[in-house]
């Protein structure tokens, strides 16, 4: 078996993923190899589905946001009421960056270099001094990503025309998106609270791994536990293994979750308060979903889950993972603002967002340093990383694999799906030792 260091060139043979990713351990080169990173960008981020934007970020025709997919800048733009396009942010003429702003609104997309103008469907509609352009204008439109699909306003895109339908990719995990949306009495989110981006000097995969690792909480975040009373005291910080009733879950297709809801016994406990704080919110949820279900949703709270490969349903936040290089990535987040709730609820969501995620947050600042130290320790040779915890006690419930909060069930699920994608396997293998 050969491992690729940072200097690996594309002429080398493809990495042997089946050897690098075993049932209960993975090789460190998966976090350091340039060849593997480039392979991931192609197989996962270009050929598969990636999350790009939420409909509420671009509510009106012409509204756009900039994102990056596998290193390519893209524009996500609303062309019509129900039509969102994703273009490579690059002029078809001489390759200039078309759109330099992070977000905005446009009636047409006009290149600053030579003034070529495109409509919101990417068609070339105007060229200055047109007599000189004798080529086929139809061939000079913007590069549109061939597949853009959404589930409840969460838009995903792919460079691969033959990618499986989005709903096949999401599979059962669509229920996690439902759970996030249905924190609102209207079932709709309004993600206009702004984004914060946090730069990690670590491989991108450490983000979806750590974000659903329930084992590290007591060790990476003791300063949080000591300084702040929170809902996590009951859900994640118990000292005895048997007192932790929160669960790790693997939903298939690389989608992973840690679910704190079993630790919550009252309405809005997950929000660090009780129902007397936001009676209007509680009443509207009961009105929308019925007494029992409305109160149940308010007790369980929003999901804490990673949708493969780059969407993080982060309780009161929506997050994105952006790979930059084998040793660098960006953790994005915006608060999970809800439609149809009083301002106080969304204000509290914003403040909790600042507390939990981002460069200065009480939690994520510490996770970042731990990830960076792992990256440092892997060096060039890496060695093996153990993922065996809980392999003998995971079990299946309604097609979802379930384990103890502290078990590495989630990370095994992520890696086994990753292995299937990277080796071109048609369907994810079942997790080992299913009950």
């Amino acid at each position, binding site marked *: 078996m050969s491992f690729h260091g940072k200097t690996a060139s594309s002429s080398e043979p493809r990495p042997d993923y089946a050897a690098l990713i075993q049932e209960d351990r993975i090789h460190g080169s998966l976090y350091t190899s340039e060849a593997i990173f480039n392979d991931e960008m192609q197989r996962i981020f270009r050929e598969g589905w990636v999350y790009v934007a939420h409909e509420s970020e671009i509510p009106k025709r012409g509204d756009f946001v900039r994102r990056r997919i596998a290193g390519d800048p893209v524009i996500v733009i609303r062309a019509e009421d129900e039509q969102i396009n994703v273009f490579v942010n690059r002029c078809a003429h001489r390759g200039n960056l078309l759109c330099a702003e*992070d977000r905005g609104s446009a009636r047409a997309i006009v290149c600053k270099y030579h003034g070529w103008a495109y409509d919101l469907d990417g068609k070339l509609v105007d060229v200055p001094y047109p007599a000189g352009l004798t080529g086929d204008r139809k061939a000079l439109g913007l590069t549109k990503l061939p597949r853009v699909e959404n589930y409840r306003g969460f838009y995903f895109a792919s460079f691969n025309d033959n990618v499986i339908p989005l709903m096949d990719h999401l599979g059962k995990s669509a229920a996690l998106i439902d759970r996030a949306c249905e924190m609102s009495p209207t079932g709709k989110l309004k993600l206009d*609270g*702004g*984004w*914060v*981006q*946090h*730069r990690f*000097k670590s491989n991108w995969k450490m983000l979806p791994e750590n974000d659903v690792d329930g084992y590290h909480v007591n060790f*990476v975040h*003791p*300063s*949080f536990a*000591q*300084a*702040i009373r929170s809902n996590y005291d009951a859900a994640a910080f118990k000292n005895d293994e048997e007192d932790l009733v929160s669960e790790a879950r693997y939903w298939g297709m690389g989608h992973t979750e840690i679910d704190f809801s079993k630790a919550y016994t009252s309405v809005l406990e997950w929000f660090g308060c009780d129902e007397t704080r936001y009676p209007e919110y509680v009443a509207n949820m009961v009105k929308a979903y019925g007494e029992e279900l409305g109160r149940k949703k308010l007790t369980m709270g929003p999901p804490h889950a990673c949708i493969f490969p780059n969407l993080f349903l982060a309780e009161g936040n929506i997050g994105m993972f952006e790979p930059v290089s084998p040793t660098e990535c*960006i953790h*994005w*987040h*915006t*608060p999970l603002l809800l439609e149809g709730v009083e301002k106080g609820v969304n*204000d509290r969501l*914003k*403040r909790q*967002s*600042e*507390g939990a995620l*981002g*460069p*200065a947050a*009480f939690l994520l*600042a*510490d996770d*970042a*340093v*731990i990830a*960076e*130290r792992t990256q*440092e320790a892997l060096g060039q040779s890496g060695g093996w990383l153990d993922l065996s915890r809980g392999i003998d006690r995971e079990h299946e419930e309604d097609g979802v694999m379930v384990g103890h909060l502290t078990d590495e069930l989630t990370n095994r699920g992520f890696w086994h799906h990753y292995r299937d994608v990277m080796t071109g396997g048609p369907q994810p293998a079942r997790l080992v030792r299913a009950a």
Partner: protein
Amino acid sequence: MNVSVEERLEIEEFLALEARLADESRYSEWEALVDDDMIYWVPTAEGAVLPPGDKISIIFDNRSRVATRMRQLNTGKRHSQVPASPMVRTQTNFQIEATGADTYTIFCTQILYEYRIQSTRETVTWPARVEYRLRRHPDGLKIYFKGVYLVSASDALPGLPFII
């Protein structure tokens, strides 16, 4: 309203102390300089042009959260500041205005060098414009607002768990 030379010297000396306590991660001594209604704000570029709190910020602490932040750092278990980043900052271009009988607003520029000794061992430069609002108490000046407007506020930022 202009300030006297004596007031200017007093305020610059006060801010030099604040900068030094922050540089040296003397959390409790730093916290002793802030007032009971303190707001500590590090906005994103998008949020900086709007009222504080409209958009999420990198830091948007009220007094209680400033206390929490210091309490967490004081546990000695906040990995992102164990050990604390060695830092040095310079502040200059002070524009000091008296905004009332006992209040002042100060704008200055700040260049902070931070050595990320806990992880990547890189030196990060944090250029910013800083806005202070100070209130005079019988026992001296207190900060009731500190806004740090980062030059790179629109970008992805590395960890910022120290006092900027």
